[in-house]
């Protein structure tokens, strides 16, 4: 299913929801008075008009309940059972599926991978593009900007799995262009994807290629949104370019910084799934696996539906906690322009 990143706008969504709900009482229950004056008994047409809002939202809500809310409940139920998907009966095992994870070395490796992805990709996907954006700021008005942007953004619009296929060819140990380029510098052949020490970095490289330009553009847009008045006032006071960057621009783009940070932490492991599955299938020796890939293998390779459901509940709870933290701390402690 599409990976839609929830955004800073979530909070604005709820804010505007309350603000605007009262703003259009006029549009409520349109021309009901016309119907009352023309008929005594409630006519079919009138009933239909009253029900219209509900009919309009019904398809969406029905689908949301059936394919998002109900699965959430059903998943927590399945996590308490031992079931292999084909057995006619599910066996109730209480919290066994959860406690068994604690003893599963493969789960430990999945957790380790999950943290490696986060720890490696936070500096690479969150901080590096910020540094680049601040560096590129002086040349933002250059004629080549549009071409730069199109090129840097292009990996964002293609599928992770297809991106991984392109990189599979680049990483090929015998014929891949990467090893050939390195060979000209005298570097010996590296088995990028089958070496335990390099495989996860190959996946991380694909994830970086896929996201760096996008994050760079996010930061550039945030920099552009900084009000010019502030900058002009500061420069009239004799602030240097560097001082302006440090004391005005950077504080004002901290919301974007935290947004990129939180969404990276939340979604990076989800994002790399396609790359893992194409490049390494979690291997070698589970060195590139993560919690999402572990869930996939438990559920759809070993048909441990209970265990997979337990993992999905853990993923859900973690996401809820991280989102809550985002609202509770991040949004309060950052500067808004």
């Amino acid at each position, binding site marked *: 299913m599409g990976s839609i990143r*929830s955004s800073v706008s979530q909070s604005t969504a709820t804010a505007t929801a309350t603000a605007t709900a009262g703003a259009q009482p006029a*549009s409520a229950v349109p021309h009901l008075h016309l119907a009352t004056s023309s008929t005594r008994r409630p006519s079919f047409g009138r009933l239909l008009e009253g029900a219209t809002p509900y009919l309009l939202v019904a398809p969406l809500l029905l689908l949301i309940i059936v394919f998002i809310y109900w699965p959430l409940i059903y998943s927590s139920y399945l996590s308490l059972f031992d079931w292999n998907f084909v057995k006619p009966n599910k066996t109730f095992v209480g919290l066994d599926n959860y406690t068994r994870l604690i003893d599963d070395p493969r789960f430990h490796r999945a957790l380790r991978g999950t943290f490696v992805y986060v720890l490696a990709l936070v500096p690479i996907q969150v901080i590096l593009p910020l540094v680049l954006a601040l560096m590129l700021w002086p040349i933002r008005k250059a004629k080549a900007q549009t071409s730069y942007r199109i090129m840097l953004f292009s990996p964002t619009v293609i599928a992770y799995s297809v991106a991984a296929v392109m990189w599979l060819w680049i990483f090929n140990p015998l014929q891949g262009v990467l090893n050939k380029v390195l060979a000209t510098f005298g570097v010996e052949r590296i088995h990028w994807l089958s070496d335990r020490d390099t495989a996860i970095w190959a996946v991380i490289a694909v994830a970086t290629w896929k996201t760096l330009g996008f994050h760079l553009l996010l930061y550039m847009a945030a920099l552009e949104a900084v009000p010019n008045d502030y900058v002009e006032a500061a420069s009239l006071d004799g602030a240097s370019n560097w001082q302006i960057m440090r004391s005005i621009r950077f504080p004002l783009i901290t919301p974007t910084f935290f947004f990129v940070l939180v969404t990276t932490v939340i979604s990076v492991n989800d994002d790399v799934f396609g790359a893992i599955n194409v490049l390494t299938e979690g291997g070698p020796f589970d060195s590139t696996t993560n919690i999402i890939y572990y869930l996939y293998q438990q559920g759809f390779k070993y048909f441990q539906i209970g265990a997979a459901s337990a993992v999905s509940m853990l993923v859900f709870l973690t996401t809820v906690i991280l989102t809550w933290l985002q609202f509770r701390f991040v949004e309060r402690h950052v500067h808004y322009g």
Partner: protein
Amino acid sequence: MASTAASTMVPRTMSQKRRDQLGRALLHAIVIVLCFLTIFPFFWMLSTSFKIPTEIFTKDIQIFPHTPTLRNYPNAFRTFPVERWLWNSFGIAVLTTLGKLAISVPAAFAFSRLKFRGDKLLFAMVLATMIVPGVVTVVPNYVMVSRLGWLDSWTGVIIPSLPATAFYVFLLRQSMLTLPQDLIDAAKLDGSSTMQMLWQIVMPNVRPAIAVVMILSFLGAWNQYLWPLLVLNDFESKTLATGMQYFTSNQDSAQMWGPMMATAVIATIPPLAVFALAQKQIISTFVTSGIKG
């Protein structure tokens, strides 16, 4: 603009100006290297797709094909049912886009322009789905879809992915809220029903937002991976994003890389074409909303 304001404060000498120019040149050089690294995998895929096997497995680096060939494209279609995958990707992406529009436009209209009992609660229910990662519902949805007999079908891929539209509903609602109340009132005075109002007044006026939603959901559906990977097990029912994997089973053969890269080219053309056609809107929507395809 700000930096020019700052620079006029201090009179500049020639050497300072030259240093500035040098600095800019250096920055351009850095971006150009970055752009080159970003574009290279695309270029390499394209170049390989036009190479004959003996030019694919070489001793040295061969940037361009010496004897360019189109053979890899028909070969790809001969090796695997790529035309079926292409058709599946296309059909699923188009129908998902239409389905998402069909459920999100009316809902956005109701949530922005109509008042009804429970509207705030229902809207909150829609927005709350944004914190549920897709992977969390994958196991129970798979159980449900297989019971419904929807495995290996477009229906099985499309229907469960339709409700992931909270962000689109939000986007459309924001756009509908900006419409002037007079417009709605005038329609009401003309005696048009709520449905007519939506169809004749609201929809034509929020075309840009609808276009954005269409583009985003097309890209999302074309690129989706995990869900179709689970639902579509049959060889012929795969999409391009999920079917490409069959090529990777034979990586030691020079015969395989050409068709594989040709298929990758086919899989990247539609999203890149959509991007080329609407790059300004796509970049600005992605950037302001922080979403990814």
